[in-house]
């Protein structure tokens, strides 16, 4: 062992091409030239790939921008439709006005415009028992929602159960869905059909508010939280002003929950700053610029009124 440091165990593979024994066989200059050519080639390749990446980035960015604009447009339409739905409902169900009204000051910070990431309204209690099996894909969701053919008036007055799909970090175990309202957790249990626990919340925005919320991670897609809202808020929504108290009472706040919930969470995760700014600007600028939507809305309202006149 001690002799190892004295022995020459080198294989003499001539790793140095400019060995002093063969200076004439390896012209130094040529070797240097070929090395720099290699480097240049590598640099060119890198530059090309960087350019390609930049082009791809620009393309995806512009696609993103288009998607954001489309999303804003759809949101505008959805919000307007929902607003009219609320108006119709408050006009058509004055009996709900008898419910106690609690006025409270609203925190403007609570009002965050957002997209409903997923919702199904007008479901019966029976259908809500299968809520965990809902998928967030469009066709699957349609298949489950559209068969719910209840009379319109019935769904208007009793649409008190709705489901929201909210993207959530899979590591987050808090089962919290931020929708602008204040909730008090009063229970949690493990269900048979889902490994994730289900949390139960009660609206604490007003003491007598009967709205309850169940939150559970989706069994099919653990990246989504499924929030089920039951009941109707008997107080102002987080985005309502005090002057709107009477018009807000008895309206379907179920969808309002959805409106505030999903998108805000999604944005918090993905594109906190920029997208919200763009959306708010677009929403403020044109709520009724879509003529198709206006026509569809007018047709829907007139159809609704005609149906009510018939009944």
């Amino acid at each position, binding site marked *: 062992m001690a002799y190892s440091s004295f022995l020459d165990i080198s294989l003499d593979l001539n790793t140095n091409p400019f060995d002093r024994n063969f200076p004439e066989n390896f012209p130094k200059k040529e070797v240097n030239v070929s090395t720099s050519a290699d480097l240049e080639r590598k640099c060119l390749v*890198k530059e090309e*790939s*960087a350019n390609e*990446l*930049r082009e*791809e*980035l620009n393309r*995806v*960015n512009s*696609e*993103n921008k288009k*998607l*954001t604009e*489309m*999303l804003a447009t*759809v*949101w505008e*339409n*959805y919000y307007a*439709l*929902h607003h*009219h*739905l609320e108006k*119709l409902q408050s006009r058509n169900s004055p009996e709900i006005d008898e419910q106690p009204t609690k006025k409270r000051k609203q925190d403007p910070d609570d009002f965050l415009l957002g*997209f*409903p*990431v*997923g*919702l*199904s*309204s*007008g479901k019966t209690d029976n259908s809500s028992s299968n809520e965990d099996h809902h998928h*967030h*894909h*469009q066709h699957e*969701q*349609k298949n489950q*929602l*559209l068969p719910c053919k209840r009379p*319109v008036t019935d*769904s208007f007055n009793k*649409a008190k159960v709705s489901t929201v*799909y909210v*993207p959530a970090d899979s590591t987050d175990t808090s089962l919290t869905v931020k929708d602008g309202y204040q909730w008090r957790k009063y229970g949690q249990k493990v269900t048979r059909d889902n490994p994730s626990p289900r949390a139960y919340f009660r609206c604490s925005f007003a003491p007598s508010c009967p709205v309850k919320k169940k939150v559970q991670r989706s069994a099919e897609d653990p990246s989504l939280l499924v929030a089920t809202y039951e009941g109707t808020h008997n107080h102002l929504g987080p985005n309502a002003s005090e002057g709107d108290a009477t018009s807000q009472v008895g309206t379907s706040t179920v*969808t309002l929950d*959805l409106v505030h919930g*999903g*998108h805000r969470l*999604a944005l918090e*995760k*993905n*594109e906190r700053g920029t997208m919200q700014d763009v959306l708010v600007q677009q929403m403020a600028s044109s709520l009724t610029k879509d003529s198709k939507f206006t026509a*569809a809305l007018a*047709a*829907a*309202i007139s*159809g*609704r009124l005609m149906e009510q006149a018939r009944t």
Partner: protein
Amino acid sequence: TNTNALVDELNRVRAENKKLSEMLTLMCDNYNVLRKQLM
């Protein structure tokens, strides 16, 4: 380093793109559901 940064940014934007697409799909679906309810 520059290339790596570009790749990272591209991945981020792609993920954002995917989320936006999903949200748009759901939003359209929700809108249609609401419209059918009104009708």
